[in-house]
């Protein structure tokens, strides 16, 4: 299950996000890291320092692209210039697949630069799936879509978030980037059972997982990516990989970023959970052979 057609049959291990404060450490110390995730839009420029650093990173590491601005759920026309630039970057990084979010964020060509929650309707699912397919066809790499954390829900919704996610990925025939922290955040903000979410998605389509920290406010939880992963999220993560298999996992840490070592150490905690599931699978396989 970890290597599947949705992630181009890769089994990458544990990665972390490539962030500016760590550039120097990574380029000079060359730490051992399974893979780095880059925010595509930060490198969709013409030249300069971002691409120079990226090229140096690419000499040493596997890089996977993660986007924040394809806005699959928007009703706007797909921006061809954006796709063209993205494709050029795909060729540069040789990312075997890429991810972006199950959200909308632009209206008539004006960008909010936010990951806005979808109304969970069949019309939205059809529109979103069409746009995922269009992008994937143009970019010529598999796309996996990430569930976002949200703070508002629409009256017009016709299904749950996990039903909507399933509807979109089945229609688009694409994979899922399962963000476990986002499920936790949304479950607290909207009052649903996060395990019901985890149990009711097409597990065979999960191509990667995200884990992160969040911030608690008096009346809601905000997905801030500025803390270590909290215990309830680790618990959910353990459940998710039991369901989906030991899947490539990325730790997101985007604000108040500590040292590279601290971020990496936090990410590697996922190994314990992945190892446990792998061992169980090996035992089961052994038992099946000896039976």
């Amino acid at each position, binding site marked *: 299950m970890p290597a599947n057609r949705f992630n181009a049959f890769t089994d990458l291990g544990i990665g972390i996000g490539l962030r*500016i*404060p760590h*550039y*120097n450490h990574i380029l000079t110390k060359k730490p051992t890291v399974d893979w780095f995730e880059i925010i595509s*839009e930060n490198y*969709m*420029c*013409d*030249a*300069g*320092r*971002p*691409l*120079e650093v990226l090229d140096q990173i690419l000499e040493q590491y596997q890089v996977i692209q993660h986007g924040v*601005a394809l806005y699959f759920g*928007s*009703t706007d026309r797909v*921006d061809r210039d*954006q796709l063209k630039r993205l494709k050029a970057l795909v060729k540069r990084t040789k990312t075997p697949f890429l991810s972006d979010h199950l959200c*909308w964020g*632009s*209206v*008539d*060509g*004006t*960008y*909010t*630069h*936010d990951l*806005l929650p979808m*109304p969970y*309707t*069949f*019309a*939205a699912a*059809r*529109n979103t799936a069409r746009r995922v397919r269009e992008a994937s066809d143009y970019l010529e790499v598999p796309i996996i879509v990430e569930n976002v954390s949200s*703070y*508002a*829900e*629409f*009256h*017009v*919704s*016709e299904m749950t978030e996990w039903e909507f996610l399933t509807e979109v990925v089945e229609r688009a025939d694409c994979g899922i980037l399962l963000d476990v922290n986002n499920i936790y955040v949304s479950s607290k*903000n*909207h*009052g649903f059972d996060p395990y019901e979410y985890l149990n009711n998605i097409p597990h065979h389509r999960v191509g990667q997982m995200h884990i992160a920290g969040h911030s608690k406010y008096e*009346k*809601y939880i*905000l997905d801030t990516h500025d803390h270590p992963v909290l215990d309830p999220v680790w618990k959910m993560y353990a459940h998710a990989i039991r369901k989906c298999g030991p899947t490539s996992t990325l730790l997101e840490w985007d604000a108040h970023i500590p040292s590279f070592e601290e971020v990496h150490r936090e990410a590697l905690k996922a190994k314990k959970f992945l190892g446990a599931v792998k061992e169980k699978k090996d035992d089961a396989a052994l038992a099946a052979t000896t039976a």
Partner: protein
Amino acid sequence: MNRGNGRQTLSELRDLQHLAGAVIMRPLSRRWRMQSTWTDKRDMRTVTAEFIKPNDRLTSFERIEIYNRQYWFRLIDSFYDDFPGLRAVLGRLKFNRLAKEYLTQYPSRSFTLRNLGRRLPQFIQDHPALVKPRFELAYEMVRFEWAQVEAFDGPAYPAVSVDDLLGNNPAKLRLALQPYISVLELKYPLDEYVVRLKKTGLRGDASNAMEEQTHEHRSKRRIPIPRPRKVFVVVHRHDNSLYYKRIDERGYRLLTSLNKGATLGRAIRSAFVAEPEPGRSRPGRPGRGRPGSTNAVAPDPDAALVREWFETWTELGWFCKPK
């Protein structure tokens, strides 16, 4: 508004995104909260309740307000990252007001925030009251800081070397500046001022125009506003780091002339046009009492100086072939 009573259509989805987008991108109140009335004067609570579900802790208004505030905080943060010098000369309150007004008129039309400030120089010219009494300083600062955004990651074409220039007829040779280079005549020594600001840590780390080696020697000391003094500065990058290079007025004239499409020979001649004597008009323009006359004669270009300039500038990779 479809409240879930029937299947939503694509057209209704589009309408919903238009409405939600308009609410989210609407300017915040003076207290940085969502405005209490909608554009048609209806209570915002009523408007938001029509399409956003409340929960047991937050009203519809409060839930969408999270997005409304996030939108403005994110854009203004990004604006600050690109224009920290402008904020330093205007102060926080005036800067925030300018940002709100500008972003209301020119919201982001690109998938990247990199281009957010592109129209700010023109906007300031159109709205001088927003930056008074420091219009001139603010305008110059915006030009200078936008040049840094361009220099950070603007496109670069194959550079023309000194060897490429050898043997060419200056009367026919045309060169262009790399697109990431800006040649500026500034009314204030903003290069010095911004370097001092950076040392105090006023530039945000997420800036497009950021250099990495800015974290030393930071202090809370206020940097005095610069006094007017004309300077000529080239904002460029070398080895992918951002630099400001001072040039003199002749160099400025040469580079701008080349970039406008003049031949090398003509650009060099334009650089060495003599300065008018005080009280007289510029060369080439009619003199006051003697229509049609000029008041100065262009001296011979200083060949050694021109050679030295071109050695430096080509080494820095400033020139490319014109498109």
